[in-house]
């Protein structure tokens, strides 16, 4: 009988410690959301490199929340330590009311430690280093007017900032962090949020990366709505070839100009341009390959799973998060619309030589936003190749969003 009772007790304890006993309904909802994101990543291939780790991190943290658990230090007596089967000699002691206690530390979960790279703002500049190694600034150098489209798309950030502030439920720092989602630049959004509103890092990072992944769904309707068939069919002239010297000088000049004018943007722009200099100089091939492959992939895995792991059910399913997600989407749509509208202005100003569709690529989701310009352009004219033209505003958008981040940081920090 006693054996049966003990067996029953073990089964009850196991059930209590299992996910069924510990998880709340919010966790199950978030697991469902993660499955949808996994479907979009695998079946629809929406930025799978980002979306898949995010979705899996989201799934894992909601099934096992302790994977994101912080380290905890307890003061235990010698007897308690011995009961745990550990040697008291390896712990520091604290004397309290004449009684000696041992500082026993329970280490945090795996994702907690990986998340420090996000929290301390280490991963975003490293991601920018890899992006710099993979980015060809040639189209931007060949057609510097593209910078204007990169700036136009940042208008969405500042207009969203106004709206978030007017709503009255967010502080200016929180509003700035939410507005930067409009830049469609995950690393920049994380970088700004860690400095301005670290408590909102989870929802903002998930929103920023989700919208970047959902660019193929969000952008095309806005682009079609704001342009005519004739404008979308414009075939742009070939870009001039750019010499190696121009390519080498570009990152050096940009980093000097931006760092002098906006020092807060220096970590992001600096690493972006360092990566690009690795690529263009052609003398550090090994470093270039490592930065754009191994390093970039490792950081992407760490960033993806830990950003996803911030979306725990109890934290994520709140009205404030709903507000952030809604405002983030608004910022992103507004940025796309502003880019296209500026593209239309340039279309008129150049007598129809510029296809306004490349304006939407001014949001910095590289290279997805440029590929969307290409896709929508080809729907009107299958012989139209806008990709390289759209890469100009696209990479200008990366610089533009880093500059906008610098403005927000310098004013709101």
């Amino acid at each position, binding site marked *: 009988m006693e054996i049966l009772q003990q067996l029953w007790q073990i089964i009850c304890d196991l059930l209590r410690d299992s996910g069924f006993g510990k998880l709340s309904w919010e966790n199950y909802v978030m697991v469902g959301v993660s499955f949808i994101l996994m479907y979009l990543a695998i079946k629809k*291939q929406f930025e799978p490199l980002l979306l898949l780790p995010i979705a899996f991190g989201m799934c894992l943290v909601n099934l096992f929340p302790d994977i994101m658990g912080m380290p905890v230090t307890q003061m235990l007596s010698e007897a308690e330590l011995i009961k745990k089967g550990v040697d008291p000699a390896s712990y520091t002691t604290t004397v309290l009311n004449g009684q000696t206690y041992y500082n026993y530390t329970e280490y945090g979960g795996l994702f907690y430690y990986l998340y420090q790279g996000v929290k301390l703002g280490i991963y975003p500049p490293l991601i920018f280093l890899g992006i710099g190694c993979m980015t060809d600034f040639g189209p*931007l*150098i060949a057609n*510097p*007017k593209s*910078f*204007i489209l*990169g*700036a136009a798309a*940042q*208008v969405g*950030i*500042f*207009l969203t*900032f*106004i709206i978030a*502030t*007017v709503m009255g439920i967010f502080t*200016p720092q929180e*509003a*700035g962090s939410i507005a930067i989602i409009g830049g469609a630049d995950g690393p920049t959004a994380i970088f700004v949020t860690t400095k301005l509103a670290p408590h909102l890092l989870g929802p903002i990072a998930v929103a920023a990366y989700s919208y970047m992944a959902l660019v*193929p769904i969000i952008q095309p309707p806005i682009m079609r709505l704001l342009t005519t068939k004739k404008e979308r069919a414009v075939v742009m002239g*070939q870009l001039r070839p*750019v*010499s190696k*010297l*121009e390519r080498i*000088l*570009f990152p050096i*000049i*940009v980093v000097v*100009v*931006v760092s002098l*004018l*906006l020092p807060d943007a220096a970590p992001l722009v600096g690493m972006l341009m360092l990566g690009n200099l690795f690529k263009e100089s052609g003398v550090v091939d090994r470093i270039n390959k490592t930065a754009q492959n191994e390093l970039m992939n490792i950081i992407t895995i760490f960033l993806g799973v830990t950003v996803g792991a911030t979306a725990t059910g109890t934290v994520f399913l709140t009205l404030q998060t709903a507000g952030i997600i809604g405002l983030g989407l608004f910022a992103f749509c507004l940025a796309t619309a502003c880019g296209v509208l500026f593209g239309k202005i340039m279309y008129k100003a150049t007598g129809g030589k510029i296809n306004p569709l490349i304006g939407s690529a001014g949001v910095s989701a590289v290279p997805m936003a440029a*590929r*969307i310009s*290409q*896709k929508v352009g080809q729907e009107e004219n*299958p*012989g139209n*190749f806008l*990709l390289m033209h759209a890469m100009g505003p696209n990479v*200008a958008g990366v*610089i*533009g969003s880093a*500059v*906008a981040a610098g*403005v*927000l940081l310098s*004013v*709101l920090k």
Partner: protein
Amino acid sequence: MDAITQAFILLLAGFIVVFTVLILLILIVTVYSKIVTSVQNKGKKGKSEKQAAEKKDDSPAAPIVTAQTDTAEDNGEIPGEIIAAIAAAVSEIYGDKPHKIKAVKKSRAARSAWSRAGVLDNTRPF
């Protein structure tokens, strides 16, 4: 100062700074591109002149051939003979009907079917 006024000031400051920095970059990129291009062109020109002079020195007995460049210069890159041939072909088609050739321009380099298929394949978004 209330939060909304502060937000509007930030909006204006943001517009001004972002556009100023990027316009400054446009100017800098445009200027240095021109400088680099002109310096490189000058270098190339000097090199080719030097090479031509060296060639001339090496082969003093080579016959001098005078190219008929007058028509080519008059019509940009398209030689006058080709324009004449095109005009003759147009005249042949139109016959006595009144017609006028306003311009003869080189068309953009057309891609072959294979090249076009390759570009389509490499730039297909999804």
